[in-house]
């Protein structure tokens, strides 16, 4: 039992120690001369022209939404893929219908221009 879970525990420990340790080291060793200008957001050498409060294209939202949908689809594909031999033709048609229905939505959104970034 020991040999089974020990490696992962050690790996996680090492990974945490590495991530925390290197930052702490750097904080201890590195010099510290903060100044107001140094701590200001970078603006290519200029004083700050505008804040980050900017609007983003709504396209990003649609991409994230479509990503969720297709991620769910992919997640349904995995258990099918591992068992598709035993599920046979029935499973294949089932999955085919599943994908085609989702593809209809994808093609609709595509044709409506949700995937266009130029305009």
């Amino acid at each position: 039992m020991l040999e089974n879970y020990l490696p992962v525990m050690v790996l996680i420990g090492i990974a945490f120690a590495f991530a925390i340790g290197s930052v702490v080291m750097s904080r201890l060793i590195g010099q510290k001369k903060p100044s107001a200008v140094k701590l200001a957001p970078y603006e290519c050498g200029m004083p700050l022209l505008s804040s980050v409060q900017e609007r983003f294209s709504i396209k990003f939202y649609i991409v994230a939404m479509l990503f969720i949908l297709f991620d769910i689809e992919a997640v349904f594909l995995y258990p099918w893929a591992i068992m598709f031999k035993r599920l046979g033709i029935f499973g294949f048609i089932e999955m085919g219908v599943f994908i085609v229905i989702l593809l209809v939505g994808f093609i609709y959104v595509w044709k409506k221009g949700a995937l266009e970034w130029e305009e």
Partner: protein
Amino acid sequence: MATWMFYILGAITVVATLLAITQRNPVHAVIYLVNSFFALALLFFLLGAPLVAAWEVIIYAGAIMVLFLFIIMMLEIAPGVEADRYGPNWLQWLPILLLAAALGICTLLLTGLDPVGSNGVPHWYASPRDFGYALFKEYALAIEVVSFQLLFAAVGAFYVGRPERKSKSPAGGDR
């Protein structure tokens, strides 16, 4: 041992979720929520459903929370509005501790499954193969209904986020 792990994980989930809904900073709330989903995934793993655990991480923590982050970023909420003057205060490290605890239990789980079964596998263990077979054999109709739901969601998402007609996209459209 499994019972103890169950209670610890359950407590982590509840605490993380409570922290998520009491946070004022939305991105911090997202982090707590991811934490909570992670602990939930481990709970599923503990209960002998590794596939569902993986789904929980891939879909909830990896996809839906990313959408949340996107929305928060697009809603123009700048960080650091609340005063945190002297760097982080210690309460803010709680999620890391929670996550560390969850990960620690995860490691115990990966084999600590032993307490319930004789050969390291609880008797209610649903292997990915069995799970897939049952899902596609007995719930075939449900699968197709899910795909219709996804179709509606795609169309709905498009209409919510559709640009207004005859007007250019919002200032500085492409980024």
